[in-house]
């Protein structure tokens, strides 16, 4: 079952895999982002028009831009903005029991 642009959940195998290359990324109940290849950078990496926060609000922030890639084929799985110390968000959690019902 497709659960994101390039992520597939195999309920029988209880695994999340990359639809581009077939690599298993993690167990179904885990956070795929934590098992992806993560690159972090300043928020200006998010797009050409982005400017440093200090130009917008007059002070530096600890916001960063995170990119998550398939650890095998490097397709872009997801991006997020977060404070440097904030945990990686677990955005998708499919209820496996409901699939077997």
């Amino acid at each position, binding site marked *: 079952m497709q659960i994101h642009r390039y992520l597939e959940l195999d309920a029988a195998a209880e695994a999340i895999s990359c639809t581009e290359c077939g690599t298993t990324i993690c167990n179904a109940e885990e956070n795929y982002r934590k098992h992806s290849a*993560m690159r972090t950078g300043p928020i200006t990496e998010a797009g050409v*028009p982005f400017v440093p926060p200090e130009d917008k609000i007059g002070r530096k922030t600890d916001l960063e831009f995170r990119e998550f890639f398939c650890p095998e084929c490097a397709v872009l799985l997801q991006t997020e903005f*977060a404070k440097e110390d904030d945990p990686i968000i677990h955005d998708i959690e499919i209820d496996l029991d409901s699939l077997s019902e």
Partner: protein
Amino acid sequence: MATDDTTDEHQGTNVWEDFSEGYVPRDELDIHPSVTLHDETEGDLDPITYEVLRHRLWTINQDHGGTIENVSGSPVAYYGGDFQPAILKEDGEVVFNGPYVQLFSPVAELVVKWILENRSDNPGIEPGDIFLSNDPWVGATHQADVFFAAPVFHEGEIFCWLTNTLHQYDIGGQNAGSFCPGADDVFDEPVPIPPIKAVEGGEVREDVRQMYLRHSRLPNMVRLDFNAQVAGLQVTRENIKGIIDEYGAETIKGSMDKIIEDSESKFIDKLEKIPDGTWRTRTYEEGSKIGNDELFEVTLQMEKDGNNLIFKNEGTEENVGAINLTYAGFRTALSCAINPMMMWDQLWVHSGAYRHIDIETQSGTISRASHPSGVSCGANLAAILQISLIYDVMTRMLVTSDDTRDDMILDPVSGISVLSQAGMDQWGNPFGTMNMDVMGVPWGARSTRDGMDVAGYVYSPRGPLPNVEQNEQDYPMLYMYRYNATDYGGPGENRGGSSMQTAWKPHKTQAIQTVVAGSGGIKPNTSPMAGYPGAPGSVRMVENADFDSHLADRSMPTSLDEFDSEVTEYHTKSEFVQTEPDVVETQSPGAGGYGDPINRDPEKVCSDVVKGTVSRESARKYYGVILDEDGDEPTVDADATERRREEIVENRLAESTIPAEGE
């Protein structure tokens, strides 16, 4: 009227708790026995009669909108579509809202239910009455959105309700325009008015109308809107009575019931194709009010459990400053995502969906604010931020099913800056307005296609964008440029829509006083799906711009860089004065992309570069597309593109770590 006997059986709600935490209707409304609701319904309508009546009711509601536009003459109504008429059942459940701003009708339901519970005894609900309300703790996104609600009686019973909401130019508070981003609390803002009877038995109550208009800096303009809102209800009430006479009350009620039942069964059909699960998102609001530069965490969790959606906001910070939304505001924000993505095949009827939505958010927070938090920026700032988060979790849910994936639209408005402008106009009269250029937003990408550039709000399909000539006619402004900006649409296999940039100066006036209320100025409030985000919007000004020499040279500036003066960028919560020679530029935020941009057809990227929607820098960096510039027009350099895309893949892995391995 109240007697000691009836007080025992009718309590209404605890209004002071409602005024503090926000009214949440119970399953059974406590209505005074002097008011009876018409609930006889024809359960077995033939399909042809049903379709005729369904569209008749839709058309009657559309005519209601037309009456408001025509009587008010308000550019906010006409060019912004920032209003909404609705038809509700006898107990307040919404049958139809129109194709205007979707933000209003789920709150209209709260207003009507609250009136039934707390006004049915004293002052009573009678034929010809109209109630007025703008209390965000009863039912409003913010105080400037004023609700008018009218019962329609049939043979002594309330047959249905009609409501309308219209954003007012000014109803008081510390800032002209009634967005108060500098507020510490609601006492710096327009006074919230819980439902009061403004029209009694068909006669406008002058005492109430004067009390209401007395709050405003522009009582003459607000008086026109008052008349428009009353006229809309009175015209529509006659139209409803007309179809009752024609078809009979039970038949009309039967069609209303079926409209909602159909929306419910469609909603359930869609949910049944989707697995159960929980989806989560998070953003950071920049600044609690003017002058504050802290970041405030705002989160949303959506759980799908069978046929129900449950919303929680665990981790959202306490209500603070001027950035808050009440329960009513959050409840209504849901419709902005649900209607276009899930109820598009039901004429945007959302009541069936709301029967399966539970809001279990924590009170006293930015997304469920307690009194006396500042909420006057609710609709434009706090609700828009919540709508982003709602899009984020709902698109992640909809992508899981083949049946709903293509209905998904990535977050169209991942930030906003609303400008309230006031001063003296070109004729020497006071003016005040919300600048409707804010409508120049895109749509996010979809699974099957790019997002639309400068498409207008997906959740306000009838809301156009005023032409510059219309703004110049109504206000003391002279426009310099307006175009679709480069690189604002998020890179993706399907690109996000790009957004409008525009600039103007005051014209035939000394200055325009401006208040900015918005969010998502540093970064967008959402992360799109496997693509890059749209770029944040901005409000910038060049002081003492030398526009006259441009005019003398017969050249129209196309960028602030063409003026030989410093550019100031304003915070999303700010206020400033734009004097006659100053040029202000607003940039709306772009929307996010779907899929990896290195998977995008290079020819499409080339075409975007030729159109000016994507820069060569972005084509190279995000899309990995290199152009051959030798000919008249750029073409794709296929070999160089292939090499660049391989390089992007190598860099991604070389510059990354796997977080789980470090734990």
